[in-house]
Every structure is written in C-alpha cells, then in structure tokens.
C-alpha cells in the first residue's frame, strides 16, 4: 500500500512539473510581442536619476548611465526609438573601436620586446646600434606606411562591418584573368587624406600599421652586428611602403589570395587570421634575403665551414623581451577580430587561450629538444620556442580548437631548433637571433597549419584537411608559394639594388671595433671596458690586417 502511495506521489509530481513546464512554454510561445513605444522611452527618461540625485554620488554604480545619457536628436520631441537604435549601433562600433585600438597599442609595445631580445642576443659592442635599429624602424615604417603603404594594402578594403564599413576605402586595382577579377593593390588612402579622413579608417590604419612595423623589425635581428645604418633605413622604408603592403593587400585587403575561395572554390580563400604569413613570414623571408646579401659576421664561420657560437651580452634582456612579446601577442591575435561586439567576435576568448597554449607548448618543444640533444636547458632557444609557438598560432588562432593550438605550438618549438641549425650549418647564413627560423619557418608552418587544423567553427567557417576540406590546404599552399616565390624574390632584388647603390655592409674596422661608435657615435654601455675577443681578432688580423688598435679609436 505504501509503495502504491509513493508511486502515485511521484507520478503526480512528474505530472505537475510537466504541466507547469508545458504551461510556461505555451505562455512564452503565445506571449504577444513586446514593442517599446516612444511614450515608454519618455517615461524611462523621466524616471532616470536627476542631476540632484547624481550630485549625491553613485557608489553602487546603479544611477550612472541611463536613458538620459542617450543623445536626443530633437529636444522638443524628446527620446525616440530612432535615437535609441542609433545609440545601440554607435555603442557596438565604439566597443569595436576601443577594442581594436587597445589591442593595437599592445602590438605597438611589442617593439620594446623585439629591441630587448635582439640587443640581448648581440654583443655589447653593438648594443646601441641594435637598439637604435629597433627604435628607428618604427618611425621609418610608420612614415612609409602613411605615405604609400596603407593605400596599397587597404585602399580597397571597404566592407569591414565591425568598424562601420570603412566605405572610403573603395578602390582596388584588379586585373581580369581567365574570366575572373583578381585584386592586385589598393588605390586610396595616401596620406590618410581626402575621403579617408574618416574615424573608422584611422582605427584600421593604426592597427595595420603596428602589424607592418612588427614585420619590419624582424629583419633588423637577422642582420644585426654588420648592417650599415643607412642601408637599413632605406631598406626598411621600402619594405614598409611596398613589400609588406603588397602581400597584405593580397591576403587582407581584398586581393587575389583572399579571392581564391570565391574565384576558384579553394575553401574560404587564403586564410591568415592574424598574420603568420602576412606579418611573420614576410618579415622572416625578407630577413633571409637581406642576411644572405649582408653576409655572415666576421668569425662566424671557420675555413672548413663549421660555425662558431657568438654569445649575446644579456640573456636577462632576452627573457624579459620574450615575455613582453608574449604579452603583446594578446593584442596581435585577439585584436585581429577587429571588434569585440558583433556576431562571432566573442571568439576572442578562444583566440586568447589558443595563443597562450601554443606559446606554452612551443616553449616545451624547444626546451625539451635542446635538453635531450645537448643535456642542458638552452635559455635563448627556449625563448625562441615561445616565440615560435606564438608565430605559428598567429594564422590559425581564429580557426582552431585548443588541442590543435597545442599541437601547432609544439611542432613549432621543435621546428625552430631544427631550422636554426639548418640555416646556419647547411645554408651558411648568419642569423644572430634566429629571426629567419622563428618568423620565417614557423610563419610558414602557421600558414600551412590552417589548412590542416581549422575545425570549421571559427571565423569564416574555415575548415582544414583534418576536418574534411582539402581545398583549404591548396589555398594555404598557394599562399606559401607566393611568400617564398614572390616575396623572397622581390625582397632579394630590392635589397640587391640597395647593395649596389648604398652598400649593405659596414667596414671591417667598424665591425671589429663594434658598431656603436662608428655608426651611432656613442657606446651602449660606456662604463664597460670592452675586451677584444681573441678568436675574432685572429680572424681580423689574418684576413683583413686589422689589429686591436681599432678599439683605441
């Protein structure tokens, strides 16, 4: 009997709950649509705290920000629905503007990280010169980009809804091939004047400019300790004005790589979310071209082809610089949504976590590889591993899940160690900071990884080979081919011409004595007593007849 009562009670409860839920659902389904009337808006404005109320202070934050703060187009009519809707739209764009600007400021701060890493990995006699290259590249790049680069890259980039449409950027020069139109370069935005004197255009200019400067500063690391300052200044200017913007247009400015999806059905077209290819590979590949032309530092290679380690002067600066760069990367990748408020932009959380995870596994990849290979944990390679992971996740960060990010970072961490060895020992290219491997090799790996690991849930529904779309992989390979086939060749020829006109390399005397005095006129660390390195003096005396007297001058 007791069992029957218990069962009946349970059934009754379930029935009551079901009826209640059903009634609730019915009530929701049949509820009349609520529409806000102008009268209600006026009432809301009337109920808002008065000036006298606000004068009492608002410690709980419940009185500040009400209907009275919405600008009214006609004071006689008062607050209308149109006013409210316009304010909602402006709020969305304002959130996106602030997000994009703040993340741009974070990327700008990465210049400090690059300066510390590069200078720390160079000898003390070249510290001022290396810091100055990192400092001046900011101005060179910014000025060139304002004059010409932005117009080439983003002159045809209209249609960015997150920033209000960017309609003034509406001129993309294109050619017609095989019945399709292919964008080549933009044509509006010189000097940010004319119609491009526009709030949205200013925001995208700032954000794209700091990305461009990141690419430029990569080259200074690979060519450190022997690059003539004048040649560096000319080369950086041209890279900021032409080389970087060209590829930037093709990938991000509505150019032909971005059109591979619509024109040739290759996935979603070339996809590079935050710039493994556009920023890092362009910088790394140009660094390779210039460092080939500049040649290796005196004493780097022996006559039998073996190489010598040239130890940097400040590993603490290197490690702090790496952390600054990792911090700035939170602007680099999440900021590339160009907004925090609109459909899909809440992906910024995933992008930030992907970024930090890839940096973590990249560090582990390099650290463990070097530990197992040499028996010691290599600090500078661990730092490079962190950067390699971050570089590699830059392109896929908007398209992959956290497991994919970990795998991409781990592979990048090992890859950077192998690549550094290959560039130095096989190609005989001297790269004091490993910039070619960190940014070039791992940048290309990042571009490729989009075609493999993109899971279709992220921005633009990009789907890679492992998630069922081989055509995206082809689009990524076309991008890689363009980077190493076109960008490398273009950068190489431009810098070969600069070598003819300007001369890329400093004199033997300057190089042996250190570039701080001859190029900058001031030592980086004037209170240090510089001790000539005996092994390099042997090279200098045997091959160039330079003696230690250069230090007296």
């Amino acid at each position, binding site marked *: 009997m007791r069992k029957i009562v218990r069962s009946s009670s349970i059934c009754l409860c379930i029935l009551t709950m079901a009826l209640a839920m059903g009634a609730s659902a019915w009530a929701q389904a049949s509820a009349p649509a609520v529409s806000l009337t102008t009268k209600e808006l006026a009432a809301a404005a009337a109920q808002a705290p008065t000036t006298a109320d606000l004068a009492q202070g608002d410690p709980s934050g419940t009185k500040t920000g009400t209907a009275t703060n919405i600008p009214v187009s006609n004071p006689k009519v008062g607050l209308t629905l149109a006013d409210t809707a316009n304010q909602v739209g402006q709020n969305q764009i304002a959130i996106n503007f602030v997000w994009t600007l703040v993340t741009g400021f974070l990327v700008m701060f990465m210049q400090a990280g690059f300066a510390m890493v590069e200078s720390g990995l160079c000898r003390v006699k070249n510290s001022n010169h290396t810091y100055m290259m990192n400092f001046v590249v900011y101005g060179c790049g910014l000025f060139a980009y304002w*004059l010409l680069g932005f117009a080439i890259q983003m002159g045809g980039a209209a249609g960015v809804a997150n920033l209000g449409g960017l309609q003034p950027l509406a001129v993309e020069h294109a050619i017609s091939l095989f019945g399709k139109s292919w964008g080549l370069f933009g044509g509006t935005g010189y000097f940010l004047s004319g119609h491009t004197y526009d709030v949205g255009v200013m925001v995208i200019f700032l954000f794209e400019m700091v990305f461009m400067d990141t690419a430029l500063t990569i080259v200074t690391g690979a060519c450190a300790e022997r690059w003539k300052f004048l040649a560096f200044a000319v080369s950086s200017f041209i890279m900021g004005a032409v080389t970087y913007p060209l590829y930037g247009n093709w990938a991000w400015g509505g150019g032909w790589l971005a059109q591979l999806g619509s024109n040739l059905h290759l996935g979603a077209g070339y996809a590079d979310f935050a710039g493994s290819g556009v920023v890092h590979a362009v910088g790394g590949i140009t660094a390779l071209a210039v460092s080939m032309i500049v040649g290796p530092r005196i004493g780097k290679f022996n006559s039998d082809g073996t190489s010598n380690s040239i130890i940097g002067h400040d590993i603490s600066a290197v490690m702090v610089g790496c952390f600054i760069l990792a911090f700035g990367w939170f602007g680099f990748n999440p900021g590339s949504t160009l907004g925090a408020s609109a459909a899909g932009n809440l992906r910024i959380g995933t992008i930030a976590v992907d970024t930090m995870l890839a940096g973590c596994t990249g560090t582990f990849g390099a650290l463990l590889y070097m530990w197992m290979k040499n028996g010691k944990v290599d600090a500078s390679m661990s730092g490079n591993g962190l950067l390699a992971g971050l570089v590699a996740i830059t392109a896929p960060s908007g398209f992959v899940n956290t497991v994919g990010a970990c795998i991409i970072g781990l592979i990048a961490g090992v890859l950077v160690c192998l690549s550094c060895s290959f560039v130095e020992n096989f190609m005989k290219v001297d790269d004091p900071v490993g910039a070619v491997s960190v940014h070039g090799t791992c940048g290309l790996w990042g571009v490729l990884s989009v075609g493999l690991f993109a899971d279709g849930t992220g921005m633009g529904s990009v789907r890679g080979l492992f998630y069922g779309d*081989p055509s995206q*992989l082809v689009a990524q*390979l076309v991008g890689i081919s363009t980077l190493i086939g076109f960008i490398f060749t273009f950068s190489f020829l431009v810098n070969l011409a600069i070598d003819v006109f300007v001369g890329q390399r400093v004199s033997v005397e300057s190089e042996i004595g250190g570039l701080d005095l001859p190029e900058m006129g001031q030592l980086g660390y004037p209170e240090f007593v510089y001790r000539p390195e005996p092994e390099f003096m042997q090279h200098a005396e045997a091959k160039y007849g330079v003696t230690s007297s250069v230090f007296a001058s």
Partner: protein
Amino acid sequence: MAANRSQGRYYTLFLVASIVLCAGLYDYSGGMGKLLLIVGAVGLVASLLGMMRIKPLEGRTALKPGPGFMKLVGAGVCALGWVITLFGLHMTSSMGGRLVLALVGISVSLFGIVVVLPAAFNKNAVWKA
C-alpha cells in the same frame, strides 16, 4: 668611414623625394600630379646616386664579390616556382592536381633559396680563405 653628414643629407633627400613622389601618385589625375611624380622620381634617383657616390668611402667590407649572374639565376628559380603554382591553378581543376602542382612550385622555389643562392653567395666567401 662610418656614418657621416653626407649620408644624413642623402637620406633626407630620399625621404623628401618619397613624399613628393607619393603626392604625385595621390594627385595623379589632377593638375600637379604628374609633375610631382616626375620631380619625386628625379629626387629619388639623385639621392640614390649620391649614396652610391659616397659608398666607396665606407672602406673595405668583409665580403668578396660573388658571381652576380648566379645570384640572379637563384632569384629566377625562386620566382619560377611561384609561376608554376599559379599556372597549376588554371591547368587543372582537380584538387589533387592543384595540390601536387603547388607542392612542385614550392619545391622549385625552395631549391632556388636553399641550394642555388647559398652556393652563389658562399662561392667566394671570405671565411673560406
């Protein structure tokens, strides 16, 4: 010779000429555009020639001249790889075919970068002596 006043002067000319050149591009269809373009281009050439004139004063560098033709061949091979990839996109519409041709193009470019160019630059390298 190290950094000096002449370098500073020619770089200033380079920057000013670049501004004028870009102003010409901006106003190309206007009345002054073409004139500015020509003046800017002349200024750029003058700055580069000036830099070339003072280049020998730099003194000896730790580089020996390498085979220039071989360097250009290396750059040509590199560019050829890109051309192969691009034409591959139009030669076939099959995804497999495009994939293979893109990989062939990348391999050709890498051959130019990794094999031909280092051979050109290292042929007369100072460190070999």
